[in-house]
């Protein structure tokens, strides 16, 4: 936009998919649960209750940190962040203000750009308020869910598109690291976006839009805010540092809270939880257990010459990316076909609920090889592929499936020859046979069709074509 440079910073809250909450040992999965049914005396902030750190949450943080190429801090601490709100039972949130568990790192985006990470800290989520006409109710099911807050560092992102790309990549990374379920609708990942514009070397005054839960809204917010701020500056007005709310329906942001009334959180070291001290060997063990990451797959799939959209569609599903990578290791020549199957056939709406892990790389290679060897038409191969993702077929090889489905192509020359002879004897084919003999090759199509019909589709049309030519020459 003209000579204005846009700077975007993002804080992303990731709900970690641990079995139990961060400090209370209570079920962490509140989806479809009765309000206040996943609540312990600690979550309720009764007097005398003490937080006990969930080790699994620490491990998830490390995994998330490693996924973002971050330094893992071997000593981290918790702090209390104080404010009063009915969804915050203790009157403070346990967070990591001074010494977070995850240090600086970098996220590589699919377009080749990088976004720097300042740090990521572990904290507890608050509960939820439900507002009615003249009263409000509190649901504490979510209170105490572990959150990892990931904070980007300067220079940040420079466009709405890059901001979206970052959020999407972060989403992928967190799922790859098995740090979150990544359900945006359920608020598993929520984005706070900071935006400023400037036409000098200095950063402009920023505004913040909190609690966005879709990639599209992040993109739209940045577009809208950048435009709004630039328009203000061009009119000679100032951008006010404030928190603004995003209205998805109107596509606009509006003033929520200006910085002058900003809360003083009175941070204080959390005395109830000893420092988290990690052994390097423990971090190393977790690092060794990390799967390949999207960036790894991108370079791995380079050789397959896939479209970017095709490649990213596959990488969105870590299990498919894994299968494709395994296939590449086994037989690079047979792998592009598998990639196309994934992106064009498997990844369609109606297959959303399929278990993508069912077909193994070996089976996929075998199927691709059958097409390569003309044992299966490409249409038939897709039918077999879908059957491979049916749970009842897991013990069957693609060949067995194709045979059961009667889709195997007939390549045996003697068998084909016999069928062709039969066809050539049929009265209705006499004219076409004569035409071919006389060099009118167009007529061969009719004969091939008849053979195909007689073979119930299993004959390999190319072979049939050749055989008929030989017989009639």
């Amino acid at each position, binding site marked *: 936009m003209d000579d204005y440079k846009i700077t975007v910073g993002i804080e992303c809250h990731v709900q970690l998919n641990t079995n139990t909450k961060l400090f209370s040992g209570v079920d962490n999965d509140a989806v479809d649960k009765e309000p206040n049914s996943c609540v312990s*005396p600690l979550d*309720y*902030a*009764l*007097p*005398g*209750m*003490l*937080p*006990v*750190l969930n080790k699994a949450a620490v491990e998830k943080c490390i995994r998330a940190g490693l996924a973002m190429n971050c330094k893992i801090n071997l000593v981290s601490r918790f702090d*209390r962040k*104080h404010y*009063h709100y*009915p969804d915050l*039972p*203790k*009157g*403070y949130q346990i967070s990591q203000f001074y010494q977070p568990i995850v240090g600086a790192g970098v996220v590589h985006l699919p377009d080749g750009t990088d976004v720097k990470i300042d740090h990521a800290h572990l904290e507890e989520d608050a509960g939820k308020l439900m507002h009615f006409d003249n009263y409000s109710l*509190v649901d504490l099911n979510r209170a105490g869910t572990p959150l990892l807050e990931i904070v980007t560092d300067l220079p940040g992102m420079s466009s709405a598109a890059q901001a979206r790309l970052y959020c999407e990549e972060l989403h992928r990374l967190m799922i790859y690291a098995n740090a979150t379920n990544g359900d945006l609708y359920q608020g598993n990942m929520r984005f706070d976006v900071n935006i400023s514009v400037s036409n000098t070397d200095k950063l402009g005054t920023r505004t913040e839009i909190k609690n966005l839960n879709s990639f599209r809204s992040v993109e739209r917010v940045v577009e809208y805010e950048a435009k709004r701020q630039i328009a203000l500056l061009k009119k000679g007005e100032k951008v006010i540092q404030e928190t603004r709310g995003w209205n998805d329906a109107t596509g606009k942001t509006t003033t929520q809270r200006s910085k002058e009334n900003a809360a*003083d*959180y*009175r*941070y*204080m070291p959390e*005395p*109830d*939880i*000893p420092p988290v001290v990690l052994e390097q060997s423990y971090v190393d063990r977790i690092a060794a257990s990390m799967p390949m990451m999207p960036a790894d797959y991108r370079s791995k799939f380079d050789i397959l010459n896939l479209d970017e959209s095709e490649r990213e569609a596959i990488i969105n599903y870590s299990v498919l990316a894994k299968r494709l990578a395994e296939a590449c290791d086994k037989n690079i020549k047979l792998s592009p076909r598998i990639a196309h199957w994934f992106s064009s056939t498997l990844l369609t709406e109606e297959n959303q609920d399929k278990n993508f892990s069912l077909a193994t790389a070996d089976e996929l290679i075998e199927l691709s090889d059958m097409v390569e060897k003309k044992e299966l038409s490409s249409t038939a191969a897709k039918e077999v592929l879908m059957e491979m993702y049916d749970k009842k077929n897991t013990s069957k090889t693609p060949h067995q499936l194709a045979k059961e489905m009667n889709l195997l192509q007939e390549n045996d020359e003697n068998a084909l020859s016999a069928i062709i002879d039969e066809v050539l004897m049929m009265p209705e084919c006499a004219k076409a046979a004569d035409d071919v003999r006389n060099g009118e090759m167009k007529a061969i199509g009719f004969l091939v069709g008849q053979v195909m019909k007689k073979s119930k589709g299993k004959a390999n049309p190319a072979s049939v074509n050749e055989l008929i030519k030989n017989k009639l020459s």
Partner: protein
Amino acid sequence: MKIADKETKAVDLVRRALERAKASDDYHVFISLNEANALERAKNIDAKIERGEKVGKLAGVPFALKDNYLSPEGNTTAAAKMLEDFQAPVTATAVAKLEAEGAIMIGRTNLDAYAHGGSTENSYFGPTSNAFDKTRVAGGSSGGSAVAVALDIVPFALGSDTGGSIRQPASYNGVVGVKPTYGAVSRYGVVAMASSTDTMGCFAKNAEDANLVMSIIAGQDVKDSTTLKDYWTRDLEDARPKRKTIGLIKDTLGKGIDPEVSKVVRDYADKLKKSGYEVKEIEMPILKYALAIYYIVVPAEVASNLNRYDGIRYGHRSSEANDLDEIYQKTRNEGFMPENKRRIMIGNFVLSSGFYDAYYLKAQKARTLLIQAYNKAFEEFDALLCPVAPRPAFKIGENTDDPLQMYMEDILTVPPSLAGLPAMSIPAGKSKTGLPINIQLVGPRQSDQMLLNIAAELENR
């Protein structure tokens, strides 16, 4: 202390305690009695003994519980209007461990609301009187528990000590008071005052009884991440000091200390010498900063820990509130005592942005220096000897208009609290007017039993 057996019925022990509790009504020791539950428990224990089943180490022994320990038996009020009607759904670890050994809680004792204070005058339910002079304070904040033991209502009582709340009332009432090493006893289920110095301890008639009670309630607890690995495991006679060297802290015997108190401490030093201890004077000038450190660190944690009392989920809620802000403001204004509010204001001030470095952070650095000074002293001495309080129990109402003077009463008890050290309040003498005066023995972390061993040895001389 008497344990129930074939001859001694638990029901009789409990009945006697309840009778004495009722007879001492005018001291205002208890906020509530636990009569029905206690008798029920006693009957069960007697039946077990009758059947020849195994009973615990404290079978049928009645005890009094400072009313900031959670237990479903009766309300846990912390002597605050805020929690006047609060019934806990869970049991504090220390209480659960005692009950597992057959001890029976007969009542909940008075304290300064939320344990903020040194006289039990800050109780929403009114002050407790001193066991030796009803016109004087019981001390605090665990005043009710100290008096319950001093009046022979129960052989032991639980208290909590954040900056002297067990040791000082023990001294004012002439009983043994144990403030253990920080982390020795689980804080789970005790209304938090200042999390980094809160310790759970007991009052008893002698060091041996105190050791027995502590050996039961101490130990690592998965519910409190700051608890230490089990170490309170020896017989008391096996916990003898190795060097038999005692440091008499010279700085604590001069200006501002009642000469009668100094004399009791010096007499105790002489007794130690006669028992074969080497007693040498030591100077610890850093102690004079302890009170300043304490009244920054502790109010900060107090303010934080009291944030949860907001009228939303449980406890008092103002009936005058018209919106959310008023729920907070009026509920907290009505539910807290003036001393609670004073500490909340100090705490929020020292933590506020722009002041944190100057107050809280600086205090924590000074706290580290204090810990180092103790460590250095313990290179030479097994234990340090000093007074518990600058003077014997003062008159009820004497300090209520002067909070700073009230804080001064803590000057000798807060240093070990800030350093997380065990400190014992041991009966050692009386003033001319007959008021008890205890001495204080302070040792390295986890030397609790060694300190009690010294006290036990001198009790018999």
